[in-house]
């Protein structure tokens, strides 16, 4: 028992730690870790991962909300799209063959790796487009000298469309889909990067929570796997967020991208070989 539990804790702590350092969350590391190393079925890994994404998002959100970086209005409007996608995705996860899920997961990891390379949107907008102005989605961020600088938001329909996809992937694959959410807000909607990250973090918890509720209500959460993973990933994410100011994240980013690509190849190969 101790050997299995120790292995699950070690996997979850590592995933939470790396997920916090990379900004990708633990889900992209937990699902392949459970499938490849712990040999549990894909659906069990997805359920356990959704629960752990909720836990890590809640821990990280405390500081973001307290410091005022989260744009709650943008989060709530976009959550209408992600929750719709997440509930549909989690419902379908019980019906879609595991090999198809593994293939989709591999593709999502490649997408995360691509967006982790660090290209970001242009200068922030000084005013919102008419639709976003009507919803009053703009906000303020503190500048270098401490004065508050207003920012605008644009392209709500395109951002919301991508959020449905992010929600669908979250519910299907047990990940936060944070890279896709940040990409939608940063590139398409032109939010400042830190606001995008903080708002994405807030949204990840709600999206994953919607998926987790489907799994829990269906009785598809294996408590013997999900409980140690949730505890371990929370501890790992806490340690990762404390270590963040002391490490050179840019230098680590390339390593994370390499890890993501390797896992994507492994998952993709498993899926193709099993189809």
């Amino acid at each position, binding site marked *: *028992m101790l050997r*299995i*539990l120790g292995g699950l804790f070690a996997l979850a702590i590592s995933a939470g730690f790396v997920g916090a350092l990379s900004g990708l969350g633990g889900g992209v590391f937990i699902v392949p870790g459970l499938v490849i190393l*712990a040999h*549990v*079925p894909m*659906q*069990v890994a997805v359920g356990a991962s959704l*629960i752990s994404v*909720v*836990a890590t*998002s*809640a*821990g990280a*959100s*405390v500081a973001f*909300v*307290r*410091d*005022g970086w989260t744009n*709650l*209005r943008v989060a*709530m*409007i976009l*959550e*209408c799209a992600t*929750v*719709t996608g*997440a*509930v549909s995705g*989690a*419902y379908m996860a*019980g019906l879609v063959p595991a090999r198809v899920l593994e293939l989709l997961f591999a593709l999502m990891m490649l997408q995360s790796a691509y967006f982790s390379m660090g290209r970001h949107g242009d200068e922030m907008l000084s005013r919102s487009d008419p639709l976003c102005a009507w919803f009053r989605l703009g906000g303020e961020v503190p500048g270098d000298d401490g004065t508050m600088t207003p920012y605008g938001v644009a392209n709500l329909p395109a951002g919301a469309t991508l959020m449905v996809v992010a929600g669908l992937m979250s519910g299907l694959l047990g990940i936060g889909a944070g890279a896709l959410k940040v990409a939608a807000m940063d590139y398409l909607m032109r939010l400042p990067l830190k606001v995008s990250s903080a708002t994405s973090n*807030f949204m990840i*918890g*709600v999206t*994953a*929570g*919607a*998926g*987790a*509720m*489907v*799994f*829990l*209500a*269906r*009785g*598809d*959460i*294996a*408590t*013997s*796997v*999900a*409980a*140690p993973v*949730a*505890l371990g990933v*929370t501890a790992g994410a806490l340690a990762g967020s404390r270590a963040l100011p002391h490490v050179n994240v840019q230098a680590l980013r390339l390593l994370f991208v390499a890890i993501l690509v390797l896992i994507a190849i492994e998952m993709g190969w498993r899926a193709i070989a099993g189809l």
Partner: protein
Amino acid sequence: MADEEDRILRVWTPVILRTILIAATAALTGGMLAMAAQPSGYYIGRFRAVQAGIAIRQQQDWSSIVSAAVRGDPHSILTIGLTILTLVPLGRVAFTFFLFLKQGDIIFVLATAYVLAGLVAGVMLGRIG
């Protein structure tokens, strides 16, 4: 968002998040300890069944989960801990709903209500299977 609502949000969201997280962690730790107190082979048997894809779907009603948890059943205690954890997003959205309601921002009251309805729909869809 008005300054007063913004202040309430910044002060109370961390309090709500921490409280739910601590409650969930306590229940999960309790469940793991109850698991460790079971006869030798209990956990390994469950884990192997999960690996084999046998013991995954275990839909139960809440009254039986709570009564089993009171009797010290590890699976039921862990289920309660995991459920508390999934209440974190529900609590956050519900809190935001009341803030928008207090502010009288009807568009965002409706948007937040839709998100809440989506979370509840998730539970109902799960129960249907």
